[in-house]
């Protein structure tokens, strides 16, 4: 059943790919950031989705697939980029058909964001772009002040009390923005959930949510209405980070940190004027 696929053979391993197909949303975003526009052949359907895609406007000019092998093949890609999770069967099949498939890992900390950007820059044949972006991000991060001991407390609060600990990207960006993470105090390492009792006990000053559909009644708001919280003096501020900035990692994480920092300073002024 094996036969040679002429168009799929890549003679020089490190030659710059010219027909890249991404079957992962986060790979889409990094491709739009790092590759030359003409290097990209197709993106995922999600890249056209407002709630998910950070570079949606740029993405609109490209065709999309739902990530099935039979949709990918007609583009005759010389590089397919997949995510770490999802589509194992598709990845196996594409590899078996002789395509070059690379995997973009999931970033759980800032270091992995850097290495993902560098990896994609390398794969698209523009390592210098990656180095430059990572350098800018690092410069920004080193200028951030250290977290103070009495820093305000925040919790990431997604549907069903889903929250993050220090070993996650969102947890790390909270800390970098000068917040203490309630998830960490509750003993959560990477991903977990916060129950109401813990919330009442820890009394976070802010809840950070990331609603997928804007202007809908979010879980964080619903939680604030719970009698257990209304009864206490607790009145957490709700900070919404657009979902297209939290679903995938990339240089925009710096903007997320900046906005979280701004919210923290706002809160400090509000409290001091009271």
């Amino acid at each position: 059943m094996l036969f040679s696929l002429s168009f799929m053979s890549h003679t020089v391993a490190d030659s710059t790919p010219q027909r890249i197909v991404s079957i992962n949303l986060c790979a889409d975003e990094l491709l739009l950031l790092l590759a030359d526009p003409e290097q990209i052949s197709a993106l995922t359907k999600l890249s056209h989705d407002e709630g998910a895609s950070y570079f949606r406007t740029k993405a609109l000019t490209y065709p999309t697939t739902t990530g099935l092998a039979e949709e990918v093949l007609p583009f005759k890609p010389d590089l397919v980029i997949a995510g770490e999770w999802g589509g194992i069967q598709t990845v196996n099949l594409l590899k078996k058909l002789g395509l070059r498939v690379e995997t973009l890992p999931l970033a759980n900390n800032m270091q992995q964001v850097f290495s993902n950007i560098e990896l994609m820059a390398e794969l698209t044949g523009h390592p210098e772009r990656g180095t430059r972006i990572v350098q800018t991000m690092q410069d920004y991060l080193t200028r951030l002040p250290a977290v103070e001991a009495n820093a305000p407390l925040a919790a990431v609060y997604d549907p069903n009390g889903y929250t993050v600990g220090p070993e996650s990207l969102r947890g790390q960006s909270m800390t970098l923005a000068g917040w203490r993470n309630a998830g960490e105090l509750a003993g959560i390492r990477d991903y977990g959930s916060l129950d109401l009792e813990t919330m009442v006990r820890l009394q976070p000053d802010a809840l950070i949510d990331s609603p997928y559909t804007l202007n809908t009644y979010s879980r964080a708001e619903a939680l604030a209405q719970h009698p257990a919280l209304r009864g206490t003096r607790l009145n957490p501020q709700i900070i919404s980070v657009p979902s297209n900035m939290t679903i995938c990692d990339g240089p925009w994480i710096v903007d997320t940190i900046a906005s979280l920092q701004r919210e923290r300073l706002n809160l400090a002024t509000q409290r001091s004027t009271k």
Partner: protein
Amino acid sequence: MNYRILLTSLSLLVFCLFCLSLVLGRDPLPIWQAANEVFTDRSSVFAIILTEIRLPRALIALFAGATLGLCGAAMQGLLRNPLASPDLIGSSSGAALAAVIILYFGWQGVSLQMLPLSAMLGSLLATALVFALAGRDASITTLILAGVAVNALATSAMSLLLNLAPSPYAMRELVLWTMGDITDRSMDDFWLMLPFTLFGWALMLGVGKQLNALTLGEETATSLGVNPSWIRWRIFIAIAFAVGATVATTGMIGFIGLVVPHLLRPLVNYEPGRLLPAAALGGAAMLLAADIGVRLIPTDAAIKVGVLTALVGAPFFLYLILRSRKEHL
């Protein structure tokens, strides 16, 4: 209905669905061009889509569906219980647990065959555990209880892994695997599944007459020369191999093993022996049809075929129950 006519028309239906399965997809395939290119230019995109993507998918649907229908019919005939399904002896949940373990620890990258082979092993281990629990001369009740216990154990272990999943994405992948799906399998997956499936089917050969005898009760059947304990093990081992290979390749696809035998039973005059081949064909037709269905339903996230069979299967099952109630009144 004449038995021969029934089998012929079912075969025709399976053949048509198989061909449709090659033609239809998210994007239609210019089938004549593709078929032509298979013989002239094998490196063309259409030829590759036809022979390396759609053909394995259709073949797997055919064999997996036939296995589920056949094993469901055998199980219902053996246990003389209309609620029996091939999942009852633990092979499905064993295979699913093994697959989830592999995915959880990220070992699927070790080799392309890692996932199906481990699932196969999990299926055999689970069935072996049921055998060990029940003992050699177990009664049917003991066997069912042992099966239920092993299923519960495997399901709870799976839930534990889902609970501990390293990230929401990992959890999603684990859950989706258990839903049953045939997209983007390769011919390698099919070749891996084939020998186990055929071995299981071969063990089922000749079982039909003994199942017919069993309808008269175990004692009468014994006096007719049937060894109930022997036929029980034979069917169980056959299911362990055939269903194990199926689940290892496709994940858990529910309701085919349960519904198809019911659907066809009146058409074969309630004879379990005649039901076996009919249910195999019926199962293949149902899975092929469901797999065509999931391609044509235009959703962003592809619907898993196991979800569709359950969605169509459950209301149909309700209808069967209502109808049988009316007949008994």
